[in-house]
């Protein structure tokens, strides 16, 4: 395979990371918490689609749509039950709860579906593209296009709609937002809904690329998307995109040219270096100390 091919596959993987990273970054921006259960929502989406397609014979597109609905509801429910009561608690308590929710989802899936690896049938029915030496799979095309569409829509949503502006207001100053008449709790719920819905799409794309599914499928991509979000500057939406894409390309090139065992180590080393040089990430906001 050529260098270009590795890059394109890296962009495809990076697009998935970017879509997941959006959920991390939006929730962090607005609720100021790291939702470590976010990766496991991807796994839930995988199992919903798997069950729909294999047991019920549902059309792949419909299966993905159902998984988006299920995960959106799941995200909102998790927030209501696990995080909302902790709104005034210390960040550490919320973080530990998030890890607890993550284990809960993994073990629930383990209980229902068992630990053996399921064969996941790709939901993408787009033929591959051949440009001379370069082969681009249907999954790659769909993933990259999906990522672009999501980024554009999300940016427009935040810039142009009242709900989007309310999100920005809440992310900057909850009390001041409340004084504008913005229902802060509802805005946080909406953020979880959007993030989890996007995680479902990411789950469909990820499982279609790797065609395998276990209760732990979401854990590693979740952590890497978190790295991508920090890499790009947590809280920043374009940062999530850039961080995700760079991470995907670095990971794929490391696998191709250095060592596939070392790829993850290299990815995390890059993160450490970036954070040493620029602690706020690539597009992270400078924290102004007001005097």
């Amino acid at each position, binding site marked *: 395979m050529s260098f270009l091919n590795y890059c394109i596959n890296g962009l495809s993987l990076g697009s998935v990371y970017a879509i997941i990273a959006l959920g991390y970054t939006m929730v962090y921006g607005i609720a100021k918490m790291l939702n470590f259960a976010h990766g496991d929502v991807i796994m839930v989406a995988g199992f919903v689609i798997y069950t729909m397609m294999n047991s019920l014979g549902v059309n792949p597109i419909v299966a993905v749509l159902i998984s988006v609905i299920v995960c959106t509801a799941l995200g909102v429910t998790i927030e209501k039950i696990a995080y909302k009561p902790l709104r005034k608690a210390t960040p550490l308590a919320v973080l530990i709860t998030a890890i607890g929710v993550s284990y809960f989802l993994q073990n629930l899936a383990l209980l229902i579906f068992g630990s053996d690896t399921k064969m996941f049938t790709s939901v993408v029915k787009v033929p591959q593209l051949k440009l001379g030496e370069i082969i681009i799979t249907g999954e790659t095309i769909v993933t990259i296009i999906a990522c672009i569409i999501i980024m554009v829509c999300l940016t427009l949503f935040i810039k142009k709609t*009242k709900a989007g*502006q*309310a999100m*920005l*207001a809440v992310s*900057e*100053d909850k*009390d*001041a*937002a*409340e*004084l*504008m*008449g*913005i*229902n*802060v709790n509802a805005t946080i719920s909406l953020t979880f809904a959007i993030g989890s819905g996007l995680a479902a799409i990411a789950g469909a794309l990820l499982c279609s690329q790797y065609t395998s599914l276990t209760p732990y499928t979401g854990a590693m991509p979740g952590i890497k998307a978190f790295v991508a979000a920090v890499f790009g500057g947590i809280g920043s939406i374009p940062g999530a995109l850039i961080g995700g894409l760079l991470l995907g390309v670095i990971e794929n090139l490391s696998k191709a040219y250095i060592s596939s065992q070392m790829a993850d180590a290299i990815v995390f080393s890059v993160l450490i270096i970036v954070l040493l040089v620029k602690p706020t990430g690539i597009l992270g*906001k400078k924290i102004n100390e007001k005097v």
Partner: protein
Amino acid sequence: MAMLEVKDLEVHYGVIRAIKGISFEVNEGEVISLIGANGAGKTTTLHAVSGLLSKSAGSVTFMGKDITNLAAHKMVSLGMAHVPEGRRVFSELTVLENLKLGAYTRSDKKELEDTLNMVYKRFPRLMERRNQIAGTLSGGEQQMLAMGRALMSHPKLILMDEPSMGLSPIFVEEIFSIIRDISAEGTTVLLVEQNAKKALSIADRAYVLETGNITLSGDASSLLNDESVKKAYLGE
């Protein structure tokens, strides 16, 4: 009946009793000032009234409606706006975006335009800087933005917390003359100020807060001449 009626209000921060059962009222059309030293509980009182802090005892009635346990975001559509201490403008958004958030509870597009023009007329500087990021405005301009943002909701009662804090003397004059104008146009004002002299000069009545209690109240003009007020708050 008073527009805003606060009865036996108590607020706790953990085990500390910050407001110890105060009562006061604001009548329609009045400018009422709460004065007192740092830490007397002025800001806490305003936060409790607008619902940002929960009350441990007492009641708050606004335009005949019990709002003691109402969430802060529901106050705006009732006609209460709160300009918080330290302006709290959304520093990463533009001036225009900030103003539009002030009208968040209003959905009529035409009305929004009219209100925006009214606010621009009152604060021409905000018009000039409408596309500027709010965080880059000067302190005085941010205070104007915070006031303009509150006016965007067409409040009947406006709570203002230390509007003159940290401003240059010229801006202080300007801010107080704006408060006078806002009041002249029919909006009721509840003003919290450390600058007691200025506050009393534009207020109708005033309450003096001391460590969570109201120790003195009356007409602003008589408080201006009160010996104990003079000594404690007016530096005379």
